[in-house]
């Protein structure tokens, strides 16, 4: 057991922190938000230079050779900045699909482009009726010659408006909620039959509603008859990254709150001198530390070989991160008071991102249900 970072890991963390300190102040972020893309292409280019975009790919494929710990470190820094760029969708989610589901040939074609910042990916999974069930899929994939033709609608496709390629779940067989018969397909976002309506979400991120009408897939990722295990694997990696991101955002929200408690004067003294507020801040710290522990656990458990065990572990991560994020987020607003209710103040933006972070791929309540229905973490004696 060793929680120390290696020299390379520390370098990665520090250089990203430095870049974000330089490029991702709250005012700069506001400007990125207001831009047409909704994020910064300049910063994206710098991510590429730092090696963040090739992070999870093997070095001989043009990547950085990073693992779950590196992903956590980057995610935490991006969470501290509540960065808006499509890193999670392209590098973590897209990256995982390519590593776990693509041919070496396809990776050879795509990975260098991703690493260079020339190719962005988005994951088209959510449907109107699916809520958080990854297996609830109506979008269809029809075999046509050697390939597949897709039809259906996908919603809340994060960064689906700017991605050049989409990774789409679609049904090759079975009914809406069957576990089998789901395939994962790579689609050119500008292919005939793809219609995209981009929009902004409450946390300032970009997303798209996507309609697929007789769209020919470019490639199949994994087994087209049984792609759900691949999707589970990828989503578990995304959950680990989301945990890191949430810890970064919670840390900033908490720091901001404690600083404010030291400076804000009421009744002739700093509000941080009042015990009721001190204890709340201490409870926020407990929640944050428990979340940080779970983010570390995620980095470890995501490599678990048994998929059922891995899913359960990541469900537990989701529950703890979601519970902590809600408490820290809500209380950071409460302890600030009115100032944090204004859109001009950074705290609320952290709260909003934490709220959406909890809900991505299923909120804490969803995973409590999942975990309790699959036997929990502790075996009965």
């Amino acid at each position, binding site marked *: *057991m060793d929680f120390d970072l290696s020299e390379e890991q520390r370098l990665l963390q520090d250089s990203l922190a430095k870049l974000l300190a330089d490029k991702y102040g709250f005012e700069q972020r506001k400007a990125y938000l207001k831009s047409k893309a909704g994020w910064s292409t300049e910063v994206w280019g710098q991510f590429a230079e730092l090696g963040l975009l090739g992070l999870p790919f093997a070095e001989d494929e043009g990547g950085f050779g990073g693992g779950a710990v590196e992903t956590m470190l980057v995610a935490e820094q991006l969470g501290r900045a509540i960065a808006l760029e499509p890193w999670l969708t392209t590098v973590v989610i897209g990256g995982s699909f390519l590593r776990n589901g693509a041919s070496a040939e396809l990776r050879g074609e795509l990975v260098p482009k991703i690493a260079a910042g020339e190719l962005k990916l988005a994951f088209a999974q959510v449907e109107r009726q699916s809520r958080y069930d990854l297996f609830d899929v109506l979008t269809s994939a029809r075999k046509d010659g050697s390939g597949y033709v897709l039809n259906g609608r996908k919603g809340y496709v994060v960064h689906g408006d700017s991605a050049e390629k989409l990774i789409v779940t679609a049904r090759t067989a079975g009914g809406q909620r069957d576990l089998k018969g789901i395939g994962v397909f790579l689609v050119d976002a500008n292919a005939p039959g793809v219609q995209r309506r981009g929009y902004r979400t409450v946390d300032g991120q970009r997303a798209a509603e996507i309609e697929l009408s007789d769209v020919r897939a470019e490639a199949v990722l994994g087994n087209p008859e049984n792609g759900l295990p691949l999707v589970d694997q990828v989503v578990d990696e995304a959950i680990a990254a989301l945990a890191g991101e949430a810890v970064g955002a919670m840390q900033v929200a908490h720091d901001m709150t404690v600083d404010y408690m030291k400076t804000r004067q009421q009744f002739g003294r700093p509000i941080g001198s009042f015990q009721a507020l*001190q204890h709340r801040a201490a409870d926020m710290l*407990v929640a944050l530390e428990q979340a940080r522990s779970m983010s570390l*656990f995620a980095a470890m458990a995501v490599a678990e070989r048994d998929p059922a065990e891995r899913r359960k572990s990541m469900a537990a991560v989701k529950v703890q991160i979601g519970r902590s994020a809600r408490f820290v987020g809500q209380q950071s607003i409460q302890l600030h008071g009115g100032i944090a209710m204004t859109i001009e103040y950074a705290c609320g933006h952290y709260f909003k991102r934490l709220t959406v972070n909890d809900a991505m791929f299923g909120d804490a309540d969803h995973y409590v249900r999942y975990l309790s229905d699959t036997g929990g973490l502790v075996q009965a004696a």
Partner: protein
Amino acid sequence: MDLRFTEEEIAFRREVRDFIARELPAATRERMIAGKSPTKEMVVEWQRKLNARGWAAPEWPKEAGGPGWSLAQRYIFREELQQAPAPSPLGFNINMCGPVIIEFGTEAQKQRFLPRMLNLDDWWCQGFSEPGAGSDLASLKTRAVREGDHYVVNGQKTWTTLAQHADWIFLLVRTDPTAKKQEGISFLLVDMKTPGITVRPIITIEGGHEVNEVFFDDVKVPVENLVGEENRGWDCAKFLLGNERFGQARVGASRERIRRLKVIAQESMDGGRPLMEDPDFRRKVTEIEVELKALEMTVMRVIATETKRKDKKPDPATSVLKIKGTEIQQMCAELLMKAAGPYAWVDGDPEGEDDGNEVDVAPDWALGLAGIYFNWRKQSIYGGSNEIQRNIMAKAFLGL
């Protein structure tokens, strides 16, 4: 960063687990599974088995009679004991007084007391709290006046856990009433057989006898039983309390309680089916399991940072362990009681003394669970109440 246990650590866990399986008396194990505290005889017997194996004091350095383990090994060892469940090495000896003597004591004190502590030839108890000094421990009033080659102690201690078993007590006493409150305190070792000591039981709400009042009436204590310098006893107290909090996470113990809870929830029927099949109940259990998993990782983080610390100051992160550890244990106790349903309400017999109440009407698995729930409310009060922990965090961590 590598968050896994090493091969050696995994092998060590197996060694500990095998030892417990082989050596732990069935009666002790069964009593503890039922949620009861082991008897004095059971604790002594087990401590001596551990001592014979060289495992009596996981945290002590080798030269003091400890096994010389890494923090990870100590954690594994304690976790295995808790989840067996087996008695832990007696905390008063091994985690409270022993380390203070090792840190602050004279060579003669070490020679005299440590081997007997390890073998539980002497059972120690803790004389800190007083009627007027609970969370505000430094306001304690028990007086010790130096007269020649001994101190004369007068005053009263309270909440003295298992004083009825104890051969010795370690005491915080006021030796300089004119100094500022933390500065006039000394740390004394007192033989419980000394004339002038009276132990009076305090029966807690569930009916058990764990804690006591201890009265001191002109009790003569040889000066050689002073630990550290006179009037510097607060240093010993702070050091001891820092050690005490470290163990309060009790992850293994909570895991064992959750296992037990799942067994009982299979036995106990609700709506015509085992309670464990009720989704609402299951979700409550799951919420605790998740908190416990996070706590387990927090403990490991604290262990990892402690390993690298040079100074001996307690880590403020221990406050997280205390708050969460006790909250989780209390939630376990509450769910166990609720799982048992109406048979949890048969008033148990915590001391095993037959007072005529018909306790055997309840199924074995239900008996005494309400008592444990009531008793375990103590956990968020003792060892620095959870509110004191929050004060410490606000001050030490947040600078408020």
